[in-house]
């Protein structure tokens, strides 16, 4: 049990981060807060992916060093480099996350223009009052 908790503590931490993000996305009334939660959620997922690429035992960043560059034919030690694939995927995910944030912020500005508030419950109230 102890091993279950400690040996994989980082997974626990990602889970906690994701929960925080998800809670903020759904539970917070303020729209910007929701977006902050969204960013936290997304980066927690990214963290999760990155940690799948980790290799213990002397693996370094996935950039070929030194002479290996010149002598491409010599065998490259696979265990010496981290797994590049999750990094690639997460680059894309970060981009997606910033793009989503940008669009969402633009929508927030549209909302603010119309209702002059960013609190979800107030907006709902205004909408109910105006009957739309």
């Amino acid at each position: 049990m102890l091993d279950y908790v400690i040996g994989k503590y980082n997974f626990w931490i990602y889970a906690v981060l994701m929960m925080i993000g998800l809670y903020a996305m759904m539970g917070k009334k303020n729209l910007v807060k929701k977006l902050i939660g969204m960013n936290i959620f997304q980066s927690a997922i990214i963290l999760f992916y990155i940690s799948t690429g980790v290799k213990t035992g002397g693996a370094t960043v996935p950039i070929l060093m030194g002479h290996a560059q010149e002598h491409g034919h010599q065998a490259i030690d696979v265990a010496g480099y981290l797994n590049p694939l999750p990094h690639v995927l997460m680059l894309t995910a970060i981009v997606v996350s910033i793009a989503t944030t940008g669009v969402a912020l633009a929508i927030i500005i549209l909302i603010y223009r119309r209702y002059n508030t960013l609190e979800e419950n107030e907006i709902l109230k205004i909408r109910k009052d105006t009957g739309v």
Partner: protein
Amino acid sequence: MIIKSTVDMTRQSDDVIVKTLSRLLIPFIQIYALYVIAHGHYSPGGGFQGGVILGASLILLVITYGLDNALRRMTERLNTILCSLGVFIYAGIGLLCVILGGNYLDYKELDQILHVGIAQARSLGILGVEVGVGIAVMAVMVSIFLDIATGGLPKK
């Protein structure tokens, strides 16, 4: 209904220190961004990161020197064209590979026009693609920032 006056991030800053320092820093930021794009093969970084930094340098320009000054350097139209151009470079390189007889984005076909060997052709293909990404990301970042910070480019 009184709309609370909001802070305008695109007004010219009246702080001389900020203005001067950013003036001095921007060219270096830009060259660093281009360095990041060009050296994506050897070091961390690449088109996306470089593009973001390049965009950030322009955003800095907008924040310190105001929207109109910045737009004189990078007009709305140019920005839009760069957005499209960047992505088009990427997609266009892919399409070029198709035209040269390979599959989509198969850079080894570029060897036919570059005459450098397959691995080098791929490397150059990657570079070209990164440049496209950089341009697109730069333009888009600036565009998004302008839209959000000004609420859609108000009066001149």
